[in-house]
Each structure stands twice: as structure tokens, then as C-alpha cells.
């Protein structure tokens, strides 16, 4: 089952884990953007989550509490964004970027003293007997619980957004806040909750980096993953399952290009290194070309603040 030294089963299993931070953050941002809010501060919320998760896990010895701590930290930071954009009606793009700057700074200050510590391990969830099954074992059963959680969240969000009343309200607020307001919904309050949810998901994504992917704390550990998550939301046309596909595609090509380097593919390294970005663009072009002329699925009120004048 090897192709030029690369085992596709291991590759798939690897990309599922390596895509988790981007997937979680992008799912959260999808909800935020579906409610009409553009929060570019994902990177800042992720790194705060990475630190918060790390600190809680180290202090309590429990990785699960760590992930909750990461989510809480991300949500707390996102409330600054919510306060500024929903109460003070500040520009969302600029506030989001400022949030990233602020988050990076706060995490670096707060992380002093946590260098060179190993957090408690987040292990495989299911018994080895299952994980050792050929082919399906590593792909289906060999992961830690967060991987399953990320897939579960994809399904839950898809269902919530598509089939529930809460989803309907979120979408209504994102498509036309005027109309939603006229129907009696508290636009800014709903958006605030969506922002906090997005912050929690980004924080958890960050915690996955510092607790599972790279179990350690160093300054700047998320290294730009938040930006990729933002791109994936757009890639997915704001649809949860497509977010999963986008995150796996991007994560998969990143892992594949490194594997191709190891296997000695003969493809120049610099092209391999650009591949994840170029192929993401290419796939999006192919997908959007088919829907030429139609809207690309962006919520109509995205990025616009709402003030109830009456």
C-alpha cells in the first residue's frame, strides 16, 4: 500500500490530527461570520487559547480541563472584540487585527515561566486493539478525543445552522440585520454570543497546538494558523462540511509535501512548499467557476455593524 514510500493510510491519519487547530478555529469563525460579523482576530484568540489551555493543563494535570481553559481564554478575549464592535460599533476589520496584536502580546507576557515544561499528555481515546486494525484502525480509531470532537462539531454546526431555530436566527441576523431586528430579535446580543462561541472554538484550536500537536509553550506557537483558518472559512463558502474539507485539504497537502520531500520525489522543494496555498486557490477557483454569476455565499451583512435606531 505504499506509493513511493508514502503510506496513504498513515498520511490520512496524520492529516486528520494536524488539521484540528485550523478546523476548530474555522468552524467557530464560520458561525461568527454567518451572524454577519467578520472577526479577523482568530490568530490572537488561538494563541491566548494555546496559553490558557497550557497553563490550566499544567496546573491541574488534566488535559481535558486544559481544553476547557483554552476555550474560556479564547472566549474571554473575544469579548473585547464583542464589546468594541457590538456596543461601541467599532470597525470590525481593524478591531480584529488589533485583537490579534493584543492577543500575541498578552500571551507572551503571560507565558513567561512556562517555557520548557511538558504538559500532561493527551492520549489516544480508543484501545489499541481497535487502532491496530489494518487500514481503518489508524484512520478511524487511532486518534485522541479532540479529533473526534472536531468532526462531531462539524456535524453539530451543520445541523444547527441548517435545521434548528437557533441556526435560522443566526442566519437571519447575518443576512439582514434590519429584517431580523424588525422581527424582534436582539441582533447585537445574538452576535455577541456568536462571537464568544467563535472565540471559544479558536481558543480550543490553539490549545490543541500547545497540548497535543506540539505539547509545549513557546512565544508565537500558533505561527499564523489563525490566518489559514480565516481563509478556510471563505474557501468553504461558510458551510461547516466544506470547512472540514478545506481544513483537511490544506492540512493534507502540507503533510503530503513534507512526505514527498522525505521520499525524495524530485519535485523542487520550493514548489512543494508553496503547494498548500496554490492548490487551495486552484480548488476554490474550480469550485467557484461553476457558480459563476451567483453570489459566493457570503452573508449579506458580513462586516457591517448594526445599531437599532428605534
Amino acid at each position, binding site marked *: 500500500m505504499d506509493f513511493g514510500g508514502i503510506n496513504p493510510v498513515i498520511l490520512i491519519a496524520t492529516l486528520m490530527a494536524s488539521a484540528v487547530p485550523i478546523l476548530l478555529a474555522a468552524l467557530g469563525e464560520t458561525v461568527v461570520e454567518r451572524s454577519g460579523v467578520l472577526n479577523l482576530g482568530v490568530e490572537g484568540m488561538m494563541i491566548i487559547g494555546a496559553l490558557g489551555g497550557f497553563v490550566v493543563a499544567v496546573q491541574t494535570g488534566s488535559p481535558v480541563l486544559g481544553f476547557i481553559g483554552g476555550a474560556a481564554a479564547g472566549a474571554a478575549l473575544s469579548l473585547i472584540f464583542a464589546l468594541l464592535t457590538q456596543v461601541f460599533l467599532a470597525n470590525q476589520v481593524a478591531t480584529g487585527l488589533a485583537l490579534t496584536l493584543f492577543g500575541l502580546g498578552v500571551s507572551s507576557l503571560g507565558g513567561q515561566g512556562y517555557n520548557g515544561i511538558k504538559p500532561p499528555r493527551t492520549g489516544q481515546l480508543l484501545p489499541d486493539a481497535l487502532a491496530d486494525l489494518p487500514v481503518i484502525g489508524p484512520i478511524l480509531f487511532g486518534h485522541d478525543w479532540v479529533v473526534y470532537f472536531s468532526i462531531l462539531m462539524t456535524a453539530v454546526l451543520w445541523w444547527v445552522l441548517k435545521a434548528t431555530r437557533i441556526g435560522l436566527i443566526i442566519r437571519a441576523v447575518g443576512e439582514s440585520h434590519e429584517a431580523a431586528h424588525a422581527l424582534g430579535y436582539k441582533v447585537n446580543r445574538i452576535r455577541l454570543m456568536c462571537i464568544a462561541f467563535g472565540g471559544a472554538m479558536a481558543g480550543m484550536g490553539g490549545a490543541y497546538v500547545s497540548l497535543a500537536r506540539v*505539547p509545549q509553550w513557546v512565544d508565537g506557537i500558533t505561527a499564523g494558523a489563525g490566518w489559514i483558518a480565516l481563509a478556510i472559512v471563505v474557501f468553504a463558502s461558510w458551510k461547516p462540511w466544506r470547512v472540514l474539507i478545506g481544513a483537511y485539504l490544506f492540512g493534507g497537502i502540507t503533510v503530503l509535501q513534507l512526505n514527498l520531500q*522525505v521520499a525524495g520525489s524530485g519535485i523542487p522543494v520550493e514548489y512543494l512548499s508553496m503547494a498548500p496555498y496554490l492548490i487551495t486557490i486552484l480548488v476554490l477557483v474550480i469550485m467557484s467557476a461553476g457558480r459563476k454569476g451567483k453570489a459566493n455565499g457570503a452573508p449579506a451583512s458580513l462586516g457591517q455593524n448594526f445599531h437599532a435606531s428605534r
Partner: protein
Amino acid sequence: MKRRNLLASAAMGLMLASGAFAQGMDKVKACFVYVGPIGDGGWTFQHHQGAMAVQEEFGDKVEIQYQESVPEGADAERVLTQMALGGCNIIFTTSFGYMDATNAVAAKFPDVKFEHATGFKRDSANVSTYNARFYEGRAVEGVIAGRMTKSNKIGYIGSFPIPEVVMGINSYYLAAKKVNPDVQLSVVWAFTWFDPAKEADAAKALIDQGVDVIASHTDSTAVLAEAAKTDGKVIGFGQASDMAEYKDGPRVTSIIDNWGPYYVKRVGALLDGSYAQQDAWEGIAGGEVLIGEITDKVPAEVKAEAEKLRDDIAAGTVHPFTGPIKKQDGSDWLAEGATAPDGDLLGMNFYVEGITGDIPQ
């Protein structure tokens, strides 16, 4: 402390007597420019340790200043100018990218000493350069890698294809090959200095394809953390700092960037008046490259072999690049018994024979 001062003043007196121009100083303001945050746990962290060593050594006689995360180019020039204006007597610029900025500012402040790490330009009399022969440490790692690998596949994670990194790869491979002719080396280029998640992915890719000893030239502990997940099947090395937290796991030894001795020496020289321009490239012998403790995971005879190589390199009896060595394309590089000239190493842009793949150019 007293004795040192005594010696220093004696040395100073001697120098004055012999007509040397140098004059000691009562107090030195030593300043450091860092490329990353101190919390990076690697390159910048180690330089800062060096700065702290200076403070500890000289106490009240030095004042330390530093600036973190200084980008190259215009920003570096501004920070340097500001430091020089602000009364720094000696400024250490701790990244290759500061080379031109260091020389440009040094030309404007002839009374301030500038020390640039890992560069080669010394345009004015007040610019010195310093570097460490990390490739010596790579050779020690190579011996361990060659002996310890069971799959005969060893790996190396590079940052960018620059001579400093290529030099390390070649040294690592040659030493491994010498003790284990069957060894194969896989190189992965991360195209980043710092991205822990990507470094972990790179390590995972190597492990998935059967590599069981991994060295890295990126800064974070992500590589060791990834190796730790294999429960002892894969080993690795601490890079830049000791990374002692992985001692009970995959880390079998480490290369430690130990800048303290050099910084203490240079600031000391400024204090006692013996300071002179120089181009320092010290290695294991000078204490700038430390080999971290070799753990019990390494069998005693391999450990002894690695330690012997370390000591021989320190004593100057062995050079990691000793001929006959051919380049990857089969052309001759070093003749039998010849050792590599420093110039060849500093500009190294080729693999030695036996390494597969191309250096991205």
C-alpha cells in the same frame, strides 16, 4: 573577583607600558539586539542567557540593555543607532540578517564596539564578528545517529538552504556514514525558522517513512515532542538549548549554543582595556558549542565513541571535514588528509557524496 581585577589592572599597566593604545573602562554598557522574543526557548533565549552571564560575572560594572524581536533592515539600523546614541559601549547583534545594518551604524560611531554574530563583514575597525562551529556538534550527533539507527534511515529538518544549515547536514551525514556505511539521510526543508506545528509535521513525515533518528536546525522542541509520541522508537537531539525536559524520552544529547563565555570575554576585554577587533569562530574547544549530557539510552560504547570524538575535536586532532571527501556530483572536494578551509565551510552550498536530493537554490 578581586584577583581578577588585580590581574586586569596588571594587564592594563603592562599594556600602557608597552605603548598600547587600549585603555580600560570603569563601567561598560553592553547592549544586545535579538531577532526573536526571549521566550522562543531557542536561539534568542540562549543569547539572552549569555547576556545574563555577563551581568552575573561583572555585577555593578556592567549595565545590560536589550531589545527583542528586532526585524532586519531599517528597524535594526534604528535600534542600533538608538543604542549607540544612548551610550552603549558595546553592542552585540545576534542574527546574520543584521550584518549590513551593523556595519552601516558602526561606521557612524567609531567609539562604540560592534559585535555581529555569524556574519563576515568587518568594514570598520570597531566591528568584530563571532560565530560558533556548530558543525562540530553535528559530527558528534552523527556518530550517535549512525550507531543508534535500526532502520539505517536518519533524518534532518532544515530551516532555509543557507551555508550554515548545509554545513551541519554534511557534517552530520559524514560522521554517521563513517560509523555506519549503510546509513541513508533524508532532509526536509521547513522553509521557516519557527513554526512548531510545521516542525512537528516534518518530524512526523520522517518518522512515518521509517526514519528513527532525527536532527533539526529549527528552533523549537516540537521535533522532540513528536519523537516522544513513538514511545522510544525514535530518538532526537536538543537544539540550541539543552531541552533537558526530554531527557527521559527521545533526547539523547544536545548541541547547546553557549554564548556566555564569549560575551564575558569580550566585555571583560573592554573593561580591562585589552579589547581588539577580531573574527572569532570558536567551537567545542572554546566552549561556545556544548554537547549536552549523553543519556543512558545510548549504549556505553557508543557514548564513549561520541565523547572521544568530542574531545578529539576539542583537542584539534580531528576535524569533522577531513578528506577524502567528494561532492554530491562526484567531483573532488578534499584530498586525502586535507581538512576543510573555513572559507569553503562558510559558503557551503553543496551536499557531500552520498546525500540524495537537491539543495533548493
